[in-house]
């Protein structure tokens, strides 16, 4: 059944996903057995007890206890699913990785209609953010570049890059309305609720196939995506981000390439930061996917 369902499902590239898919397959087994069983019975009785063939009905009907057994069986299977699979799977899903596993913590701030990804940078500390510093063109999350810990922070739009085989904690929040952060290939989905920061934990087990990476992946079936699953406004349908899983060293290289230029010591107003960030972007214009996604984001905002 798992293989059967997998014909329609996206590949699973997460550590926890296999258990969820197995459970899903078990549930579908239960559904299939009940449906086919009752279906065959249904067709049989419709033929056998049609008025022509069965002119007078039996007042007492079936005296069989089989349905009680079936109901008992359904209860039993549901208990097994619940206790043996569903509750443990959920407990695992919400358990944070142990600090010893060196989890990577990334903030994802959803907004109409883009995913802002915030990396803490080399110091491992997220810089201070302030909603009054938000500038949709240059500083979508309101990062205070004056804050020392913000100096090395990386902010991307719609580009989530993660290392393989290393636990990841995404701190999910939203600037405006409720969104839902879905990674179909990672069996991850979590509502992003304004006013809350919700942690989600997962570990990727595969790197994104090179040939499938953005930008070429737009039309490619192997593209890994962030899909918004909750209606968030008129641009909900195009609130699409991209997920890239790297080998660890490759990921470090990506972080270095994305890291902002060292900023002069004195704090700068947000506006100037903007130009720095834009310079950043153009510096990496050779990094084709980045430029493309920036355009993409601009386009989205303009349209939104």
């Amino acid at each position, binding site marked *: 059944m798992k293989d059967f369902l997998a014909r329609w499902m996206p590949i699973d590239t997460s550590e926890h996903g296999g258990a969820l898919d197995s459970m899903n397959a078990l549930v579908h087994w239960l559904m299939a057995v009940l449906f086919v069983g009752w279906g065959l019975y249904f067709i049989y009785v419709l033929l056998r007890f049609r008025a022509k063939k069965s002119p007078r009905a039996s007042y007492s009907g079936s005296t069989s206890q089989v349905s009680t057994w079936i*109901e008992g069986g359904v209860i039993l299977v549901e208990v097994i699913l619940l206790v043996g699979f*569903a509750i443990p799977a959920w407990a695992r899903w919400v358990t944070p990785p142990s600090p010893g596993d060196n989890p990577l913590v990334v903030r994802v701030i959803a907004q109409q209609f883009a995913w802002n990804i915030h990396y803490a940078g080399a110091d491992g500390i997220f810089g201070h953010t302030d909603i009054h510093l938000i500038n949709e063109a240059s500083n979508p999350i309101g990062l205070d570049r004056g804050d020392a810990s913000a100096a090395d922070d990386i902010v991307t739009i719609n580009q989530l890059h993660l290392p393989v085989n290393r636990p990841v904690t995404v701190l999910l929040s939203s600037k405006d309305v409720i969104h839902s952060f879905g990674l179909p290939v990672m069996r991850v989905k979590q509502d992003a609720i304004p006013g809350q920061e919700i942690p989600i934990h997962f570990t990727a087990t595969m790197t994104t196939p090179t040939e499938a990476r953005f930008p070429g992946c737009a039309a490619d079936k192997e593209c890994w995506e962030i899909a918004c699953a909750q209606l968030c406004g008129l641009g909900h349908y195009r609130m699409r981000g991209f997920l890239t899983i790297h080998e660890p060293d490759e990921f470090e290289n990506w972080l270095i390439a994305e890291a902002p230029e060292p900023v002069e010591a004195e704090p700068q107003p947000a506006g100037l930061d903007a130009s720095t960030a834009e310079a950043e972007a153009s510096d990496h214009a050779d990094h084709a996917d980045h430029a493309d996604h920036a355009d993409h984001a601009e386009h989205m905002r303009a349209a939104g």
Partner: protein
Amino acid sequence: MSVLEQEEHGSDERAGRHKEPFWKRYIFSQDHKVIGIQYGFTALCFLLFGFSLMLLMRWQLAFPGKPIPVIGGLLGADNAPGGIMLPEFYNQLGAMHGTIMVFLAIVPLAVGAFGNYVVPLQIGAPDMAFPKLNMASYWVYFLGGVTMFASFFVPGGAANSGWTSYPPLSEIATQGQTWWLVGMVFLITSSLLGSVNFIVTIFHLRAKGLTLMRLPFFVWSQLVTAFLLLLAFPPLEAAGVFQLMDRVFGTSFFMPSGLVVSGEVVEVAGGGSPLLWQHLFWFLAHPEVYVLILPALGIVAEVIANNTRKPLWGYKSMVYAAVFLGFMSFIVWAHHMFLTGMGTTISAFFQTTTMIISIPSVVILTALLMSLWGASIRFTTPMLFALAFLPMFGIGGLTGLPLGLSGSDIHLHDTYYVIGHFHYVVAPGTIFAMFAGIYYWFPKITGRKMNDFLGKLHFYPSFVFINMIFMPMFLQGLAGVSRRLWDGGEQYSHAQGGLHWNEFMSWGAWLLLVAQLPFIFNLFWSIKKGKKVDSNPWQATTLEWAAAPSPPIGHGNFAEVPVVYRPAYEYSVPDHPGDYLAQNDPTETPTETPIETPDKTSGKEG
């Protein structure tokens, strides 16, 4: 006894009613039958309207961004410039399709129409307990419907934040949302007025001898439904008023601090919680699911008992299951919210209650299926719809399982799998049951039968086309395609494998419209030209068939007050020559008095 007093009182009024002007007799009527027909007609109009909204959406999903042919130009430049549907308009259609189908079409049809028309007749009552309240209930519903319909024409169009209206999206939405909230307040008030009336009527106006365990299952389903409406709707009414105050008076029940919309900091008092709305909403909306399904089960039970010519198998267990279902439906709501950041304990609680509530549904469905064993099945038009209901509701129920377990829900949550799931419950499920009810009780309303050939021409194509729409949704859902996407997921690579289904599904929807034409024609044609029938054309046992073929308008339904001698479904009673014994038939039979049939129910209450 109060029934008799009512009856006398009713006869007086009935006598006086002959002089009443047309508007009092047919428009502001206090007769449950007229009100039932008013509800039915209005709800069917909304059913067609809600369906047509979806037909437009299905064009956009099948051919994203292509101009809608023929009627595209009529939709207005704000909605569909050049006939191309804008995402804003798509979202309006989506939100209003859901709202209209649930609150303006199916609930009023299931409860307002069938409940009003059939319940007093089935319990041998002269009318509903509170006729004026009943009239008020319909007219408040009507106002709600007008408000919802009118909201399409306000600046920015109708509500566009989904039928669930989650804040903050709904709070920053255009003016249509305010209209939606006002409309909802009307609709909820109407349901509350109706539910009180049903509860009092069923408890106090039963005919002599009609004990609770002799009630037709349909009446039980209406009774449980009435309790659900009465207890579940007030929290949503409160929530609706809160949201209205947030939008109009600047409170922030549901608005947290620190929102930034389109680069602007939102000036609100803040401190509110968007999740509060979800809790209040689903506290109603899950019981609401059973409000949609219980009356349908009731109708199907009536039609199946009648067309199998035998008593319902396990009647008692069905009744207990329905009551238990009613209780449980109040403690499962948060399974709609597994992905809002829920810990293990809470999720375990709601998963467990969700699994528990699946059991009474299985019991009822099993009882209906077992009722077919040993039957003498007549494949009448109502029976075809009732039979089709069983596997369709089965699919709807079964596909709820992976969604009710939070682990498998992660991947399927908010995908097309969910849409497929609840549409199987409500469309080929409840709506088919509604059709069964219309064909079944039409002769009681009009004294004429609907045409059988047209009925079959309605049934078979509808059955095929409705599955064409909803079955592929499960495949798209497994692929992970999100709901409510204007382009049906065209941009997403994970959606590519299932995109080709969109056109197929849309054809299913449009053909489903064509398949309704025989029904619409049949409905009107049969009023005048249908075959005339006597008062009990289906040889049924329940009390409504003891009334005149088309009971006259006005209080007092029965020529003489019926007395009940036996359970609801005494078909094919042994040692009795006919194949049915009506509840009010005083004939003595060996099986008459303690017909509890314990062998059918033993061991099933657990």
